[in-house]
């Protein structure tokens, strides 16, 4: 009988290799992760043009504009998360790799956040300042976006996994993900407006953190179950 394979990789290391692969792929296709960022910047710069360039009014609208743009741009990027891997058989390979699928999907989602979420987090304070937020609010805006965008990527991963088998799953994906993403929008915008008003923002930040932790624990499991169903 054939002896067992040598040099077996631990799940932790396998996840890290998957991260490396997806990062390398992402760097070779900058268009994919630049698109959500450009969308985010375009929407937020169009806002003052369509409403009023008066700074005091812009400052009131900044949290809403920022978070609606962030939510839509993360939705835009979601379709790319698993689609190619589903079509070319990579997800199949991962599902029968003998490695924990939720862990591998979490690794993929992390890279997706790095490529599409982190640019928004970094650009967010800049946009908020352009919309009249004081400089002192920058750390608060940054922290709120950091937690919120992470939660959005994780929640979105479940929707992306569920719509994997559909050819044009974009609309359905939005319908599935939006209700779950609304709490993130509400508390994110609330935290941002408190930050801009320079008030304590602990309450919405705790809630955002709770959503982020909850989705980090549950979303990979749900996404793995959804991927297995989509592969049937």
């Amino acid at each position, binding site marked *: *009988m*054939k002896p*067992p*394979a*040598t*040099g*077996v*990789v631990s799940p932790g290391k*396998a996840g890290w*290799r*998957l991260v*490396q*692969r997806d990062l*390398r*792929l992402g760097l*070779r*296709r900058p268009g994919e992760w630049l698109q959500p960022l450009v969308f985010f910047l375009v929407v937020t710069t169009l806002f003052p043009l369509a409403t009023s360039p008066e700074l005091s009014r812009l400052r009131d609208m900044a949290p809403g504009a920022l978070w609606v743009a962030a939510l839509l741009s993360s939705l835009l990027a979601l379709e790319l998360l698993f689609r190619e891997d589903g*079509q*070319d*058989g*990579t997800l*199949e*390979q*991962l*599902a*029968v*790799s*003998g*490695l*924990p699928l939720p862990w*591998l999907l979490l690794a993929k989602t992390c890279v997706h956040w790095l490529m599409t979420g982190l640019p928004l987090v970094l650009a967010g304070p800049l946009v908020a300042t352009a919309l009249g937020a004081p400089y002192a609010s920058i750390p608060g805006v940054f922290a709120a976006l950091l937690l919120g965008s992470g939660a959005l990527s994780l929640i979105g991963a479940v929707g992306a996994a569920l719509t994997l088998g559909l050819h044009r799953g974009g609309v359905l994906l939005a319908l599935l993900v939006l209700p779950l993403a609304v709490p993130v929008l509400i508390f994110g915008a609330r935290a941002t407006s408190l930050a801009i008003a320079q008030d304590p923002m602990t309450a919405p930040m705790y809630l955002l953190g709770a959503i982020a932790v909850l989705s980090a624990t549950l979303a990979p499991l749900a996404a793995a179950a959804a991927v*297995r169903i989509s*592969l*049937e």
Partner: protein
Amino acid sequence: MKLLIAENLQLWRGELHVLRGLSLAVDVGCCLQVTGINGAGKSSLLRVLAGLLPPEEGSVRWRDIDTRRDPYAFHSELAWLGHGTALKGDLSARENLRYSAGLRRELTPSMIDAALARVGFAHADQRLARQMSAGQQRRVALARVLLLDSTLWLLDEPTSNLDRSGQQMFTQLLEAHLDEGGLAVVATHQPLPLAAQRLQTLELT
């Protein structure tokens, strides 16, 4: 010793009763060739065996344990090759193998080069996967199967797009795998020129 046993598999795809009480057993050092007309359920059978598709009834057992009870132990001894080659168009052959087979086994560059040489892939080829022909992509996908060093191969149409020398190459790889004491289930229409005692056939209707 029969390591892979499937009993009384029943599978429906929509209105179609694809697998009707199918049973099979594969011996160590044996290859089971699955044939049948298009749509007879070859791919479905392989997906059921791999655990990608749960059957309505029946069980698949590996080393006498139901594969649904301990899928991780089963999958760590499985090399699967489906319709999709699972190659990334923007990575070279070497990178593709490093990040796919490399998720499961520690690979050195020389191991990857050796596997590529065995599937007849030119050593100096630095092209990205999307610049390769379909046959060359198949060869790289077969190199991944080799690198996984698994006991069980489940291969769905492994020789599609391969030229004549590619098909001979595949037969040699399969023979070497069986010589080492491996098992294989292969769905293909191509005749597999293996010795009669190590080739079982199953025709789906």
